[in-house]
């Protein structure tokens, strides 16, 4: 039998063929998007009308001039420092507890039964799944209004994130130094302190710094539910329609985030050199 010079042209599979995955996926996506728009009673008319545009313009206009009186600036500075402290302490707590939980959540050598691995990972996932703001709203009941609730909320969520990252880092680190110590009869704690930890420490620190950057953003808005910092000031003055003060708080928020971004960028560049 003679072979065709060119491979024969193959038609694409028919629509109801299992291989038309792309088509079905596209149809499902289209359905999801149109259902979303259809089921939400979006008030485009209210938003796109001339009236709405005017009210938006008036609203933005009220932001100017921002309130720059020394007394208020001092208040904003205190709130910024509170936000910064919340994020730093929350990340620190999370790093400590994350490390503590990462130990049972990781299997570091072959003979390790690691019974606690699955339940600890479940706990870490649950901590991670609930956003900071939801934690803060729940914690207000037991910790009261103020930055303490916010700090704990950041700590809980970030513990879930960091615990999991730390556990993966430890499982993926080279096992030879730990094996060498274990073969000499060194106990589990000292194996961790002198073999595993020194190897993964730079990675753990860079994860924690990265999360700190995220937590600054989170800490700035946590206050909206009453958990202290710039967010609380923002929600308070916006609720009273004091737009000049709101503008100052917003500007402080942006400055804080930008400053931390720049700082962490410089730190990372210095560390990687």
């Amino acid at each position, binding site marked *: 039998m003679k072979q065709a010079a060119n491979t024969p042209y193959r038609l694409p599979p028919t629509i109801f063929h299992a291989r038309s*995955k792309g088509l079905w996926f596209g149809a499902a996506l289209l359905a*999801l*998007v149109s*259902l*979303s*728009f259809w*089921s*939400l*009673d*979006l*008030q*485009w008319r*209210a*938003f796109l009308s001339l009236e*709405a545009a005017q*009210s*938006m313009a008036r*609203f933005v206009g009220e932001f100017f001039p921002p309130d720059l009186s020394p007394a208020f600036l001092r208040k904003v500075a205190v709130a910024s*420092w*509170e936000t*910064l*402290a*919340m994020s*730093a*302490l929350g990340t*620190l707590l999370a790093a400590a507890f994350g490390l503590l939980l990462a130990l049972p959540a990781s299997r570091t050598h072959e003979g390790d039964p690691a019974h606690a691995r699955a339940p600890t990972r479940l706990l870490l*996932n*649950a901590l991670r*799944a*609930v*956003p900071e*703001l*939801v934690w803060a*709203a*729940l914690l*207000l*009941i*037991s*910790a*009261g209004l*103020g*930055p*303490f609730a*916010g*700090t704990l909320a950041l700590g809980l969520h970030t513990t879930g994130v960091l615990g999991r990252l730390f556990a993966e880092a430890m499982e993926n680190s080279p096992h030879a130094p730990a094996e060498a110590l274990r073969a000499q009869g060194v106990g589990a704690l000292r194996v961790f302190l002198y073999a595993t930890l020194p190897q993964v420490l730079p990675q753990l620190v860079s994860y924690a710094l990265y999360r700190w950057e995220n937590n600054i*953003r989170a800490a*700035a*808005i946590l206050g*909206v*539910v009453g958990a*202290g910092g710039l*967010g609380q000031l*923002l*929600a308070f003055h*916006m609720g009273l329609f004091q737009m000049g003060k709101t503008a100052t708080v*917003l500007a402080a*928020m*942006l400055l804080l*985030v*930008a400053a931390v971004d720049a700082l962490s960028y410089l730190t990372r560049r210095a560390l990687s050199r």
Partner: protein
Amino acid sequence: MSGLKPPERDPAWWGRLFWLGAALALLWPLLVATEFRPWVLLSAESRAPTARFLAAFVPPATNPEFLWLVARETWRTVAIATAGITLALVVAVPATLMSTRALSVSALSGRMAPLPAALRQAVRWMLVVLRSIPELVWALVFVRVVGLGPTAGVLAIALTYGGMLGKVYADILESGETPATRSLLANGSGRLQAFAYGLLPQNAAELTSYTVYRWECAIRSSVVLGFVGAGGLGQQLDNSTKMFAGSEVATMLLVFVALVALADQVSAWLRRALA
């Protein structure tokens, strides 16, 4: 030969002790600023409501009307996220096309001309502004203008995520290989053609997987936006917490964790299928 004997103690001991002390000294102002008083959690006046609230968690609320309400609000949460991401694409795609340096015709022969360079930089700055304002703040602003409801949430997600997607899309397009695009442009194809036949096929998988990942993030955001009145699961959670209805909160937290896990799975599956 005592010189060969290894030291009995950790030789770096003093250094470690010093740095621990220094860290604690730095920690002190943080503890003061955050009013860090863990014993507040154990004091009598906070223990009683906490215990009552937590005791109400079991059993979670399962009466049919409430479950129906939760199901409806969960769909709203997903719908807000999906609609938000769709509108974010409307912002991000044109911004990407405008800001990608790989699609510059004047850059083919040396430096980019000053006007296009300025335009690209301006678009980039606009994206930076869009994404550096948190979505919650956008939502607070829009709630004032359009009133309570999902419109504010959708717009907030659209603006913040539009900024993020636009920036990352441009980064992805520029980090890939550009010779195919450049040769298309050099042979006289239009920018859109060069994009569709040069840049897009190379980067489609990465672009899609990033978009799916952001959709997953948007679901989490849309729950949070509910707390400022944008509707959905977050708003119900806020109401129930304020009424100390522990059993309702328990149900919604479980649904929420399940929703996030599901979105996680779907997004992981999609990204694997697309890779």
